């Protein structure tokens, strides 16, 4: 992991204006994605991981807005780009696929037209669009792509639609692909196929991937590095192997403890006590403190900084490194 990262997110804060006041769905997040690698972002629903990805794309829905921070793609801050230049980045340099392949494609346009539309947006003078789109469909292993080109989304299965989404996202050879829960809505077998496909395409193109998921199994299989998010903040960041072998944040421990395993004799799954605090009533200190079995008085006073406790392993916890007696 040498050299400048492809993407670096610094101090990103995205807030939403509500009748109860502003609340930050993403609150001071730092991340980086090296070239050709995969960063997994894990957390439960509502932790801010999707808002984070939309912030990178410049697609935060109203009334949300990026309030502070930088999103540096090859050193260039995307947040300061004028709209036209940002449009060139979207779908060109950075592409995105979404959780719901059922609804993420427009039902009234043939899939081929939706792919060529993306190509034309980034290369107005492009020719041979049909052939290129068919090649893109073939690359995501869609059988009989010539025939599929003129079909509508409702004529395809969920897995096929996600393949179309991937073909569309990769149509302009992006350097970074953001995949927001790409397999959550799919059957398990289809899930594995899509993950395989993503891995192969990454090897083929050298693109970086940000994989957002709540599924630790998917992260373990795909990610080189993992960031764990809780209530809008990154609480732990480490190489995937380190995170799974030596989790340091109590929240990460809780997440790993709640995954069913076949190779261990565990009488019952561990659940994390309590619930995620609502965004307008966040505790002033560590946001996990109210649910944390290891919390001490200092945890409630001020938010713990993200510290490097071993090379490449960052934790935002005052008690780390903990030696677990469990």
């Amino acid at each position, binding site marked *: 992991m040498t050299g400048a990262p492809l993407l670096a997110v610094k101090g990103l804060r995205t807030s939403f204006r509500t009748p109860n006041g502003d609340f930050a769905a993403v609150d001071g997040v730092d991340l980086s994605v090296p070239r050709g690698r995969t960063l997994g972002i894990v957390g439960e629903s509502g932790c801010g991981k999707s808002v984070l990805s939309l912030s990178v*794309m410049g697609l935060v829905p109203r009334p949300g807005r990026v309030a502070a921070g930088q999103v540096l793609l090859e050193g260039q801050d995307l947040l300061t780009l004028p709209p036209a230049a940002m449009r060139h980045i*979207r779908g060109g340099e950075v*592409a995105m696929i979404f959780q719901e392949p059922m*609804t*993420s*494609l*427009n039902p009234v346009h043939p899939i081929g037209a939706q792919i060529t539309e*993306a190509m034309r947006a980034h290369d107005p003078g492009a020719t041979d669009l049909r052939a290129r789109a068919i090649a893109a469909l073939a690359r995501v292993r869609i059988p009989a792509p010539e025939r599929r080109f003129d079909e509508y989304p*409702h004529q395809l299965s969920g897995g096929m639609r996600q393949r179309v989404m991937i073909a*569309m996202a990769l149509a302009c050879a992006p350097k970074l692909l953001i995949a927001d829960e790409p397999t959550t809505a799919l059957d398990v077998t289809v899930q594995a196929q899509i993950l395989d496909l993503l891995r192969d395409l990454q090897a083929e193109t050298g693109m970086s991937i940000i994989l957002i998921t709540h599924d630790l199994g998917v992260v373990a299989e795909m990610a080189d590095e993992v960031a764990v998010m809780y209530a809008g903040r990154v609480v732990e960041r480490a190489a995937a192997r380190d995170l799974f072998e030596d989790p340091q944040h109590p929240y990460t421990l809780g997440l790993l403890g709640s995954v069913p395993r076949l190779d261990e004799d565990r009488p019952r799954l561990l659940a994390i006590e309590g619930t995620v605090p609502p965004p307008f009533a966040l505790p002033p200190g560590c946001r996990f403190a109210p649910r944390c079995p290891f919390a001490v008085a200092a945890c409630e006073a001020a938010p713990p900084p993200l510290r490097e406790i071993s090379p490449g392993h960052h934790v935002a916890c005052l008690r780390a490194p903990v030696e677990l007696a469990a």
Partner: protein
Amino acid sequence: MLRHTLHRLLLAIPVLLGVLLIGFLLMQVVPTDAATVRAGPNASAEVVEAIRRDLGLDKPLYVQFGRYLGRLAQGDLGVSIINNVPVTQELGATVGPTLELMGASLIWAIPLGILLGTVAAYWRATIIDRIILGISVAGGSVPVFFLGLLLIWFVGFQWQLLPFTGRGGPLYTWEGIQAIILPALTLGGVFIGPVARMTRTAVLDVLSADHVRTARAKGLTERRVVTAHALRNAMIPIVTLIGLQIGFLLGGAVVTETVFSWPGVGRLAVGAILSSDLPMAQGTIIVLSSGFILINLAVDVLYAALDPRMRAA
């Protein structure tokens, strides 16, 4: 697609029969006796009876309805009680002007309404949205006759800018164009509000859809996101809703034609009803309701054309 159309066409038949039956029964319950009207005020009771037998009005209702359908099937709608002219002949002369008026109203009102609705949806909850909402509520609340009278009073009478009575001639002549402007402004004016409001709702709905987010993520321009994705998809409910509103427009046409002395089916209907010309009134009801059925049929077919998911069905 073809099957869908045929299916709709078949479904229209019972609707048409129902309309004919209700139209027929309505004419039975009005307190006017066709034989008395035709015989005139000074006719003797024997003459009235003779006319009644002659018209078949002494037969039971179902026989009358059956004969009525039989004549209808041969294109015979009867003869006007007032001036003895065949009803079909009068209708034939008035259908054209009504179609002209409706066309001239819709051709500007629908695009403008859709444009206003789309702009309002895109800039929702801003001052632009509020202004457009104000316009469409005001437009939808003004009665047709009142808007017509305002235009007649100012544009036609005070400022002498445009003619306001009758049809000036065929539409390819300058007189024809001039004469249709005020009626078309009136009838179209009251239609903008509903179209704009329906469009706003439909576009708002689509703008928050996942596939619009995908379109933005592809790096499309906002103009393309709105036209090729949001508005294109919103057209499906918009077309349906506009189709449903056409009945309202037919009612407006009756009023507009009366206010502007436009020689259309609506004015003919009002005249026939006021003079108790039952066959003529019945004829106009058939034409107006058939028009309504035809428009709905067109909407159904268009709906299928707009939504690929419907084509297989």
